[in-house]
């Protein structure tokens, strides 16, 4: 670590193999205290495997991982006390009420009664579910359930919060609200947050982004630094007339291509934009400099787009259950 702070989470040379597939290949990583750290990668990149190793439900083949100085492989039970986990798939008991779910968690983590009550109230207010306290979880919306899971993960004194794809399946409004809650939580208490997500735009607010593919870390830096190093700036230009448009395209062979009236040009920086402007400035109607996005960083590093996986067997069973499939009913 460059700033000398003791890292909260340290992953050192972790390798994990499933049969012949190498899920994680000698991964080393350090996350600072109070950091909002994002893991980004296509499906099957190894994000969830890494998260599961940190959550102590999977053992690495080689390497170590420490959370707050506790080795998660050697002392899983102790490490779990400082972990709060929100899994990709919902893990609430929807036959219990909101309060019962939180209270269950508090009891299982051995939170003393008085603190349990106050912490539950505090968390319910923070995620704006206080008025739903006595409702059965099955009556909540998907977004509310997610918020409840985050609240639950923090009923005990978690130092590190893991969020595995927390916004999958939520509408845009619920997603932004969920992130507001996560930010609010970080202001309220010391909390290191490690998140995986498909939605690249959500990474912008993270302190650091680690891009991972085929079980290897490709890069690990702040969003701004990543964009500078790997991002691609584009300039979108609309010319006044057809001859100018043709001239612009001809002037940047290999860099420019046309979409109807609009010309998209790969830019190499400020000087490039200025040169373009000084040459064609008087003859263009629109000139937009598009800053590099994390999307383009991701594309240039992995050569892949982020994609959703088809429904698994588990997903189908889940749907069956949602229709009231438990056969004692």
């Amino acid at each position, binding site marked *: 670590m460059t700033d000398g702070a003791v890292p909260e989470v340290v992953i050192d040379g972790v390798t994990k193999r499933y049969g012949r597939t190498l899920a994680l290949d000698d991964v080393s990583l350090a996350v600072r205290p109070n950091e909002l750290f994002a893991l980004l990668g296509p499906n099957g990149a190894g994000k969830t495997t890494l998260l599961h190793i940190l959550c102590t439900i999977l053992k690495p083949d080689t390497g170590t991982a420490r959370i707050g100085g*506790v080795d998660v492989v050697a002392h899983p*039970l*102790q490490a779990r006390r400082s972990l709060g986990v929100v899994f990709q798939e919902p*893990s*609430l008991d929807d036959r219990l009420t909101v309060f019962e779910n939180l209270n*269950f968690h508090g009891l299982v983590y051995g939170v003393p009664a008085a603190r349990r009550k106050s912490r539950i109230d505090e968390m319910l207010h923070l995620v704006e579910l206080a008025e739903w306290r006595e409702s059965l979880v099955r009556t909540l919306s998907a977004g509310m359930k997610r918020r409840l899971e985050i609240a639950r993960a923090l009923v005990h004194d978690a130092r590190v919060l893991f969020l595995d794809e927390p916004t999958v399946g939520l509408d845009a409004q619920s997603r932004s609200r969920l992130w507001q809650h996560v930010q609010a939580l970080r202001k309220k208490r010391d909390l290191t947050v490690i998140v995986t997500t498909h939605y690249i735009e959500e990474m912008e607010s993270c302190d650091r982004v680690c891009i991972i593919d085929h079980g290897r870390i490709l890069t690990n830096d702040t969003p701004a630094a990543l964009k500078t190093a790997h991002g691609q700036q584009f300039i979108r230009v609309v010319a006044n007339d057809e001859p100018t448009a043709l001239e612009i395209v001809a002037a940047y062979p290999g860099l420019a291509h046309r979409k109807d009236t609009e010309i998209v040009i790969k830019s190499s920086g400020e000087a490039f934009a200025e040169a373009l402007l000084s040459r064609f400035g008087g003859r263009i109607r629109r000139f937009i400099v598009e800053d590099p996005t994390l999307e383009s960083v991701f594309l240039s590093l992995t050569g892949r787009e982020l994609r959703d996986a088809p429904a698994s067997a588990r997903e189908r069973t889940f749907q069956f259950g949602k229709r009231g499939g*438990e056969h004692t009913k």
Partner: protein
Amino acid sequence: MTTMVTQPAGAGLTTQLSGLYAIWLREVKRAIRDRGQFVGGVSRPILWVLIMGIGLNPYFRGEIYGEVRFVVPYTYLQYIFPAVIALNIMYTSVQSAVSTIWDREFGFLREILVSPLPRFTILLGKILGGTTVAMFHGCLVLALARFADITFVPSDLLLGLSLMFLLAFGLTSLGVVIANRVRSFEGFGVFSNAVILPLYFTSSSIFPLEPSLTTAQTKVVYPEWLVVLVQINPLTYAVDALRGAFIHFHQFDPRIGPIVLVVMAVGFFLIALRDFSKF
């Protein structure tokens, strides 16, 4: 960093107990909220005791020339009553394992698995929860005792309840063992019926092993295969133990029943624990 590692690993006794309580409470709450299970628990004893028991009652005693003889000196109602307790416990115990599949398929299991509780405590809490519900359903049958002309003193009841507890614990563990081996709810329904009913019918629950109720019937014997099936069925001895407690009738050595019950409870629990530790 090193200062934290020296702390005792995992959860202390208080956490263990509060975690055990939480898991137990959840099982019980879920069962209370599941109306279907309760309806089954109530209707089963009524069908078996009041309809089948009373219906078959006259055929259980042989009467020749006015002389009534019994090998089993009880009415049919009294005879099957302890077996119906076992049946109700069996259904509920094995059904409670559905919640294990539910937890696994719907993700709640993960919430428990990343908690600081050891697997032993988690499993014990789940099984004790299922046992409690099964005991309650067993007691629903006891409520029909007066219709079956069963009278027992408090010490009988105490013995009976402890035997019921052992049976419920063993069968709930068996349910978890089965649940760990099936992938879906549909599979479990088929599997549990394929286990429960054959076990019940071959446990000498609805007929005594010795069919010669009267002197005229002494030549009537069951085929060897049926006798063997009944004798190798562990539930036979569980039912026998319950009969011993509630109507003081044994077909086998009274010591076998409790031994079989303890072996079942411990054995199935250990298998379930071994399976569960693999998650």
